[in-house]
Structure formats: structure tokens, C-alpha cells
């Protein structure tokens, strides 16, 4: 990657874009992330409570994957002139051992995601092959799918709701 950047600089080509977020800690136990013109709060890395003031970091990851899939699907559908009635995703994940994340002495494993499953539900005026084509295009263009599938078990499916 560094060599590619270096070669790009030498050739005069523009540098690959980089995305950044600035995150600031607040004393009331949450962080605020600033990205471009947006700000959003981030609670604990992982939370076991039924309700919280802010989403946890692991929930942001799940939400980001769902958003990535829906945004990608909507764009791919638009390119194929497929009108969408409704689009929704359900995303769930399982950590290898969440107790590691809260520092339980004697626990084994790691606090990372072991698997994530996402189901995209679509209602649209189109036949199955067309929607499958949109779905495949969505997966091919998804930054998060391509990132996550290299490091955990990622189960993705599309369900057509009539």
C-alpha cells in the first residue's frame, strides 16, 4: 500500500482518498465522533443493559453494515430502474467472548466478533432474477462486506417480501 501511494505520488496521480473521524471522550461515559459535518455519540464498547443513553461501539458496527447494504442495494436498484417499495435489514452478531471486553479475569477467548448475520428484506415490483442481480451488485460494491468477510463468519442473505 505504501509503495502504491509512493508510486502514485511519483507519477503525479492523486493520492487515494482517506476517510477520517475525530472522536472525543466525555466525562459522562460516552464519546462523540465527528466525521465531516456530522457528530454522533458512542457509548460503551459493549453493553449488557436493556437500555442505554447511547449505542455501543459493537452496535454501530452492526448498524453500519446494515446501512451499507441498504444504501448499496438502493443505488444498484436505481441503476437498473427497479422501483423499491420497502427495504429493511436485520443484523445480529455474536462476540467470541463478550466477558473479555469487560475484563473478567479467568475468561478465555477474545472479545471480537465471531460471526455476523444480516438479512435484507426487499419489497419491489421486480422478478426474482432481477432482485438477485441487484443483491449481487450490492455485495460486490460493499466496503464493509469486503472488510468483514476477511475476518469473521459473515452470513448474508436477501429475502423478497411480496
Amino acid at each position: 500500500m505504501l509503495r502504491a501511494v509512493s508510486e502514485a505520488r511519483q507519477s503525479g496521480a492523486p493520492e487515494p482518498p482517506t476517510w477520517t473521524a475525530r472522536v472525543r471522550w466525555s466525562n459522562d461515559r460516552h464519546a462523540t465522533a465527528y466525521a465531516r459535518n456530522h457528530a454522533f455519540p458512542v457509548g460503551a464498547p459493549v453493553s449488557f443493559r436493556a437500555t442505554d443513553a447511547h449505542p455501543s461501539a459493537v452496535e454501530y458496527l452492526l448498524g453500519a453494515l446494515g446501512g451499507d447494504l441498504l444504501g448499496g442495494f438502493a443505488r444498484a436498484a436505481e441503476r437498473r430502474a427497479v422501483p423499491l417499495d420497502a427495504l429493511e435489514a436485520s443484523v445480529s452478531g455474536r462476540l467470541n467472548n463478550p466477558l473479555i471486553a469487560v475484563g473478567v479475569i479467568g475468561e478465555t477467548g477474545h472479545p471480537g466478533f465471531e460471526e455476523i448475520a444480516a438479512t435484507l428484506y426487499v419489497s419491489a415490483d421486480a422478478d426474482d432474477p432481477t432482485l438477485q442481480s441487484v443483491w449481487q451488485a450490492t455485495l460486490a460494491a460493499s466496503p464493509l462486506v469486503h472488510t468483514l468477510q476477511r475476518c469473521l463468519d459473515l452470513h448474508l442473505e436477501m429475502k423478497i417480501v411480496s
Partner: protein
Amino acid sequence: MQAPILVGAVVYDPKVVVIWDIIKDFFRAQGCPIDYVFYSNYELQVEALLAGHIHIAWNSPLAWLDAERRAPCRAIAMRDTDRDRVSRLLARKNSGIGRVEDLRGKTVATGAKDSPQATLIPLGLLERHGLLPGRDFMLRRHDLLVGKHGDHVGGELEALKSLLRGESDACAVLDLNAERWLSDGTADPGQITVLATTDAFDHCNFTVLESFPPDEEARWKNVLFAMRYDNPDHREMMDMEGLKEWLPGRTSGYAALGEAVTRQRFFEEGKG
């Protein structure tokens, strides 16, 4: 900044993390900062207490006995529900088993090998009736999450299910769990009878070494005892932890377990 008092707790369920976050917030608000140290099992926690890594250990009754036999300790507080518990030996009504002696040659289901309420104390009761596992009856033990001393009740529940499926002739459960499972549909109360009830015993306590400063203990207990069930912030924690009031600790309720572990040579024989 005042150094926090370090309290150890065994995480038998993720809800323990929520419970201690609430307790920690309250102590900090009261000017008596604490921090928690979580352990995966009671053996590690007792070692940490004895080594001075933590000041206070939220101990199971078995962990209390383990700590107290190895170093002078005090039990400084407990839940109202920790006092005067009993365990029940349950049987199916249609099984023809009406008294403890009828279990000779039968199968008895228990919880994990280190569960005071679902294994050790009930086996002590059977031994007092002259019944030894392996000799007089078959023991069907459910060793789920050993090291957590039966706190998670998983093995205890499996013992009850074993009875309901007809794989066992009796099972041992804590009174509070028997009440819950006979009222929530887990078991049909019309099909179950109580064969015997153990002596009363006490459950968990907050344990400190004898060397823990009395003024620190008093400061900590003052805050703990100030928690109120009618305060919604406290009630969430108290419901999860299963209490309505914190009470002073006492050590008079560990005789039945002490006798059971002595008879079963629990500590001498590699903890079961």
C-alpha cells in the same frame, strides 16, 4: 483522588456487569468510590482476596467457607434473601417415592458438583439418611459452568428437567428456584411433590480479610445499607440481584454446608 475500595464479583451471567455498574455509580455519588474486579470463577476470586488484590469479595457460601478455612475472615454484609434458604428434594407424584429412604436404588439428579444448594447440601441430607451416592443410589450430576458454584442455576434446572423427563427419580433445587419453576410453567405443580427439605442455610456474603480496616468497612457498609428498593435506580439492580434489602453479614448459617463439605471431603479431594 480517593483510592477506590476494590470489590470482587464472579460473572456467572452478563447481568452481573450491569448490577455492578449501578452499585459503582451509587457508591461514587455517595463519596465512597469503589471499583469492581470481575472473575470467571470463585477459586480465582478467593485467591485474589487472600493475596490482597481485592478488599471485598462477593462470595458464594462455598467460597466463604474456602476463604475462611484458609485465613481469618469476616462476613460483613449479605442480601435479605441470603438468609435462611432451604433446598428441596423433589419427586414425581406418581412415582411411588414418598420418603427419602425410597430413593435407595434410584437415581437422584443434582446441579453442578460445586453447587451448595443443588448438590452439596442435598447430598449431605441424603447421607444423614444413610444414603451415599454410588453405593445406595445413582447420582446424575449436571456439571454446568463448574467454578461458579451453581449461581447460574443452569445445572439445577437441568436436574429438574431430568426429573420431568423421567430420567431421574428425584432432584435437588433451591427453594426460591422451586417456587419459580413451579409457577412459571417449567414444571407442573400437580405432578411434583416435595420429598424432603434441608436444614436452613445462608447463601452469599461480602467477605473481607480480618485485617480490613474497620473504619473502611463501616464507611462501605453505610453506603451499601443506604440502598433502597423504593428508589427506581436501585430497584433495577436489586431485582436483578434478587434482594429487597442489604443486611449485616452473619456466619451462623453455614453449618449445613460446612458439614456437607466435611463429610464429602470436598476441599480435600480436589474440590469434588
